[in-house]
């Protein structure tokens, strides 16, 4: 499974990606302009004679301008952020949630438990655990850490949430239609084998998901 | 001293405001406490500055037209070479390390600190 640059897997990730693209462009434009200005100045005003240049100490209008303009830019960025975070940081109501997955992190593996504890997937040293999710559904994750702080990161979600021992965290996502297998990993340094705490996220069509769940239930139960 | 006083009063005011704002938007108790305690830090120095200025007024370094000859004579005593800092640092290190490594080191550290402080007092003009 190739884990580089997963496409956005959820509606929230789509929002985040849009914000990212806009902010990236803005940052590159500002960067090129400012660094370009420095390069221009360095060439245009290099020392050519021993005459003392005009000793300008201040220019209040210019100074005010270059205070106000960045202020406006960050105000715009803040507004975009404020609006998007409200959408992302939401935990969906119980009636809107299609699936709840209990995620437990411990040094140095993951355990995923599906509804009613019927299906449990635990990683081992040799096999990384697979989190199977239905496409086009609203999924809520309940996060538990047993020993130290871990972090549940799925790059395809463009989202991570730290997991604190002693409290349950939760967040919801609206999984999109991208089918495939993607990377998941622990993002909060948690000790010796932190770098091995990978998991896989497999998004399958909703019917396939039901079938998978039934299969696993019968394997486990009967 | 006017600017310094204003600066510290500004620090105090800032922390009061931002601490209150943070609390109002749902800030956690730790952060709020720290911000409000910072008000105390600023207020302490602001109070001292204010009082100093009230008692001593402006100095040559506060005047835009002062020159070097406005401050002649002895300005202060600046201790040069001294063993106290090295020894005191050793004592403090031993004390903190002693908390971790064992009471023998802690006791030695405290003894060194005590003796060095006594010597410091002796070294300093009475």
């Amino acid at each position, binding site marked *: 499974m190739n884990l580089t640059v997963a496409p956005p897997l959820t509606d929230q990730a789509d929002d985040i990606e849009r914000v990212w693209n806009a902010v990236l462009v803005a940052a590159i434009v500002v960067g090129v302009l400012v660094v370009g*200005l*420095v390069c221009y100045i360095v060439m245009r005003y290099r020392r050519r004679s021993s005459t003392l240049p005009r000793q300008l100490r201040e220019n209040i209008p210019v100074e005010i301008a270059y205070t106000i303009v960045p202020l406006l830019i960050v105000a715009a960025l803040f507004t975009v952020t404020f609006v998007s975070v409200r959408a992302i940081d939401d935990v969906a109501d119980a009636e809107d949630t299609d699936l709840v997955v209990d995620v437990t992190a411990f040094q140095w593996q993951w355990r995923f438990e599906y509804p009613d504890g019927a299906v449990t997937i635990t990683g081992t040293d040799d096999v990384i655990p697979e989190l199977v999710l239905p496409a086009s559904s609203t999924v809520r994750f309940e996060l538990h850490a047993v*020993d130290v702080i871990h972090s549940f990161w799925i790059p395809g979600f463009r989202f991570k949430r730290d997991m604190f021992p002693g*409290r349950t965290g939760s967040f919801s996502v609206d999984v999109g239609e991208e089918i495939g297998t993607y990377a998941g990993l622990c993002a909060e*340094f948690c000790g010796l084998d932190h770098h091995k705490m990978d998991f896989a996220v497999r998004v399958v069509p909703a019917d396939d998901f039901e079938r998978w769940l039934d299969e696993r239930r019968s394997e486990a139960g009967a | 001293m006017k600017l310094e006083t204003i600066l510290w009063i500004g620090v105090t005011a800032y922390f009061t405001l931002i601490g209150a704002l943070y609390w109002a938007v749902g800030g956690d108790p730790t952060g709020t406490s720290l911000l409000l305690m910072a008000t105390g830090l600023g207020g302490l120095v602001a109070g001292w500055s204010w009082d100093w200025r009230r008692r001593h007024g402006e100095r040559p370094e*506060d005047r835009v037209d002062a020159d070097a000859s406005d401050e002649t004579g002895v300005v202060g005593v600046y201790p040069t070479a001294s063993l106290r800092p090295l020894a005191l640092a050793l004592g403090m290190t031993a004390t903190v390390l002693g908390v971790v490594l064992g009471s023998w080191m802690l006791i030695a550290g405290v003894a060194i600190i005590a003796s060095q402080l006594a010597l410091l007092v002796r070294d300093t003009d009475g």
Partner: protein
Amino acid sequence: MTTIERPDEDQRLYSVDDFVGPPGTLPSGLPRTLVGWLTTTDHKALGVLYAITSLVFLAIGGALAGIIRTELAEPGLQVVDEATYNSVFTIHGSVMVYLFAVPFGFALANYLIPLQIGAPDLAFPRLNALSYWLYVFGGAIMLLGFVTDGGAAGFGWFAYPPLSGPIGSPGLGADLWIVSIILTGTSGTLTAVNVISTITMMRAPGMTMFRMPILCWNLFLTSFMVLLAFPVLTGALIMLEADRRFGTDFFDPTQGGSPILYQHLFWFFGHPEVYIVALPFFGVVTEVIPVFSRRPIFGYKGLVLATLTIAALSTSVWAHHMFVTGQVVLPFFAATSFLIAVPTGVKVFNWIGTMWGGSISFEPPMLFAIGFLVTFIAGGLTGVMLASPTLDFHLSDSYFVVAHLHYVMGGTVIFALFAAIYFWWPKVTGRMLSKRLATVHFWLMMVGFNLTFFVMHFLGRDGMARRVADYEPVDGFERWNLVSSIGMVVLTVSFLPFVVNVVWSLRQPPTAGADPWEANSLEWATSSPPPEHNFTWLPPIRSERPVFDLRWMNHEDVSATGTTEAWTARSDHDSRWLPLHPFTDDHDVEPRADSRPDADTGATTT
């Protein structure tokens, strides 16, 4: 050095050497024996000690970085095992932040503040020395962790519990790390007290707050932040150590404690900390750019206001390091984090405004100042991206953050650091460094630095977490990791011309003179190196660049208003040598009499 037109005698430019005598006239104030160095309280000697010690720690931190990059060059654990790797990156970060970056700022504070404000030393010389020795001992103790059974601390430089607690990290190395930072934190707090006292109480006549060099302002405001932040860290670490050794449960959730409490305490310190690192170097650049652009600093008061705003806001952004915990007030911290970009941008524009219309020469300090500008702008922009929780949810704890932090750190403690070293080297040693070697150093460093860290932005975006000892081939991280590791080699090599330069320079005779760069601030008004207690004579102080005003004293349209007036107001007898404050450094000696010359005979009474 560029020559300046000297048309007529009464239009000529002065030179500081006219007043302080040729190089080598006065003995350098630095100690000559080992005991002298161990017992010195002189701010210049301590400044030199701080600088050398912090550069040694830079080398150690760099070596640890070398291990990290060698390990990460290819998938698989080739160089060290996981436990060692975890200690390596923990100590790398800790050494760089606590033992190199901040102490070098203190080196600048120590050496330059008294010289720049016209004082004979810092306010509390013995306290100053105490700070230094606490730093040395504290630093040594952190490294001592490597020789313990369990190895050095291996929980990351933030030391989050429960990982850093008694169960998560049972080894002695962790306790030594905590002890080390308690000591160095105390050291820093004491230095901050010293700096604030000195700047408040010991400026020379005429040196108003708004005539102080911006470097002094920055060190002053840095000290505010240190006073605020360091004790909080010390407290948090005492609590952590109590959890580890004395059975308390501050941070143990199974006993009602709270790990997030630690994070609030740590980051309340941690964010001001990174500005504590940065602000002195902003000050350095603010000294260098005007000199090599032959212009006054553009917007002095705006810069002071911007720095003040940065210092204030830096205490109010801390939980942007905790956005992904889901337990902090996102809009408040996003707002303050975005806001802090504004004064930072203002500073950048002020530096650009200084260069605009100037006459720029590319001496080594200026090269590195420009390197700082470009690097810091990049780091600042990624910082603005991270200020948005929307983006931070993905990028936090990834290599994107590693890229960001190294760009801002790189701009400051790599490029601006060398700007400082090349700029003040003549003042400290009396010798010049080779421009040619410095230029090689600069370009190698620019290339190496960017190769190493730019590609980390991609790695973070692609999903590589930080603090990982290894990665799988299937992750797709190989290409950029290899590039980064190659960059590290170039970056390491770039230090060689600098080392050669230093060795070469120290073997030259000390002929630099008082003011080799034709600079602005008061430290250039005394010999190189300065004598004991710094000044035998002071020029009139009528602006933030008294030495510039002194050189241009015959041109009243150029020098600050009142300079020539003050100069002529001094009597003929004292225009060359006006022994300033006579100092007693021995409590048995009687205070000397007033040293103003007798108006009739011209004789002084001392």
